[in-house]
């Protein structure tokens, strides 16, 4: 049984965002470019896993569709942030009415989030009746459908080829702002009336329904909100990496954010933060070792896949030894 009492959200906000801000400041002042990039990745990952936590953590229903929303956010923000010249280069078959459109970066990011939320709102409502394995397969099907559309709708995505020519607008402080903002949002949402109802439905669907909670409705709101957050994360990632293809939004990425939620503990926002930090650290650390091995040419072949092997072993161990994650459903000060 998880904690279900309503608590104030601001002590946890301060406790979690304080160290993150200090870390960002230290890296900004003293870290090199590599460290700064790793930190940007960390805060984008954090935004993404917070999106997952808002839905999965509170409702107990696993969503495999999040990375699809990330892709929608990435592509739709790109369409609105790129200059007409860049679009003429990268997207030759783009619908002509979209070519001249260009808005400021922040607006484009919000549009990315809204597009993801719109898709989630349209297809999500009927899906919210499902839970357990059926929900997993349904959201998985949704991910595959979004992926298929991204790969084939070449007018707006350049098809399976790489979309290039985005400006690198996502600086360290942009990513920090997003991470902290959504951290506070997730903590606040959890303690709202809606968040409590959602968590009640996670503990016992039948009991929650019997006291008048409209489970489909509360899940739907969380799903749409989560899609918005993930869409924003996708938009930020797009303007950090600046060129990408639909392959970036599929199973490996899904595995990464689910492992963050599971390792940290998906039922609490603190768990999401711990998971994002731990997994990003493992991922970047092992990848650094992988690169060092490959550069030193100790082995006659290149090493790849080691990072994912380490992550999946970590995840399996956590699932066996501590199925509710490092933090379980606890928020940090307690």
């Amino acid at each position, binding site marked *: 049984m998880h904690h279900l009492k309503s608590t104030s959200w601001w002590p946890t906000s301060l406790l979690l965002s304080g160290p993150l801000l200090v870390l960002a400041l230290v890296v900004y002042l003293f870290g090199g470019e590599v460290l700064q990039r790793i930190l940007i990745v960390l805060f984008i990952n954090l935004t993404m896993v917070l999106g997952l936590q808002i839905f999965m953590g509170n409702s107990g229903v696993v969503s495999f569709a999040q990375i699809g929303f990330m892709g929608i956010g990435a592509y739709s923000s790109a369409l609105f942030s790129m200059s007409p010249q860049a679009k003429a280069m990268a997207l030759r078959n783009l619908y002509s009415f979209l070519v001249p459109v260009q808005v400021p970066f922040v607006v484009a990011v919000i549009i990315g989030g809204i597009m993801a939320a719109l898709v989630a709102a349209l297809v999500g409502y009927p899906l919210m009746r*499902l839970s357990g394995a*059926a929900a*997993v397969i349904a959201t998985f099907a949704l991910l*595959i459908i979004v992926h*298929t559309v991204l790969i084939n709708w070449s007018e707006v995505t350049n098809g399976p080829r790489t979309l290039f020519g985005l400006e690198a607008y996502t600086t360290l402080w942009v990513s920090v702002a997003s991470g902290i903002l959504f951290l506070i949002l997730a903590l606040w949402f959890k303690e709202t009336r809606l968040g409590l109802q959602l968590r009640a439905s996670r503990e016992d669907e039948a009991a929650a329904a019997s006291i008048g909670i409209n489970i489909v409705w509360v899940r739907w709101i969380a799903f749409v909100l989560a899609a918005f957050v993930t869409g924003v994360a996708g938009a930020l990632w797009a303007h950090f990496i600046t060129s990408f293809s639909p392959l970036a939004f599929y199973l490996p990425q899904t*595995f990464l954010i689910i492992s963050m939620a599971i390792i940290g503990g998906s039922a609490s926002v603190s768990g999401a933060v711990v998971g994002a930090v731990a997994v990003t650290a493992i991922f970047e650390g092992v990848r650094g070792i992988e690169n060092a091995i490959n550069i030193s040419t100790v082995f006659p072949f290149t090493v790849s896949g080691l990072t*994912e092997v380490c992550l999946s072993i970590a995840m*399996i161990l956590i*699932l066996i030894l501590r199925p509710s994650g490092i933090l379980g459903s606890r928020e940090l000060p307690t």
Partner: protein
Amino acid sequence: MNVLHDVLQFIINALSLGGLYALMALGLVIVYGILRLVNFAYGELVMVAGYTLLMLGAGPIPWLIVAVISIGMAVLTSLLLERVAFRPVRQASATTMLITSFAVSALLQNMAILFISPRAKAVTTPSFFTENFQVGDLLISKGNLASLVVSLVLLGLLTLFLRRTLLGIALRAAADDFVMTRLVGIRANQVIATAFAISGFLAGVVALFWIGRLGSVGPFVGSTPVLVAFVAAVVGGMESLTGAVIGGYLLGALTVGLQLMLPQSLLDYRQAFVFAIVLLVLLFRPQGLVRGTATAERV
């Protein structure tokens, strides 16, 4: 070209693809029925069998023996995964088990990337997989025909096993009501291990035909079979072995049918259509076409 010819060709193609899909779905459902575990790592059993084919296939050993060893490797891997990864989380929620299998799947894929190669490698398969023969004016691929025959034979044998042997009956009883089955003295570990062994065996057989069709094996060779198995199982009914078979044949017919009927511009979206159907089935008939006996949750 006459209509009869087209219809016959369609039936042959749909049946042979459907038979293969039915085997894929059965391997998934036989474990789900007992453990409520949606096993994402099922596709990696196909991969393990495939890599065994790759490594031994080029040597002097006759292909049939290599095939048997490959199936054996899939069975062993399946049993090993059950023991190491799935048994410890058996008491946990369905979601925890599912995510465990997702992690196991990622682990095996990336081990293949790490230790073998990220790229797919060509496998030498017997030439009959790519040969065709003609009956009247019908073109029949020998590989397709073999998969049709083998799937029918295996379905028959599996039915016999499940209906006539004690272990088979225990398996079906466990799929119906696992707690009750244990109460009457059936050993849980034995039943579950049997289910995993059968699942591995089916994955091994699937691998022979699947990799025979593809002609190559790579770390992600199991993705399509596992997706197909999901779809077929969901459509047919996750709790029913009969449903899995029906779902497999339906999906085979649907795949071949969409290929024929969709206009060229929409053909690339075929996968999206198939998965949209999955969503519709989940929404309107979540228990699938064939209902299991104990689907409703009691409060």
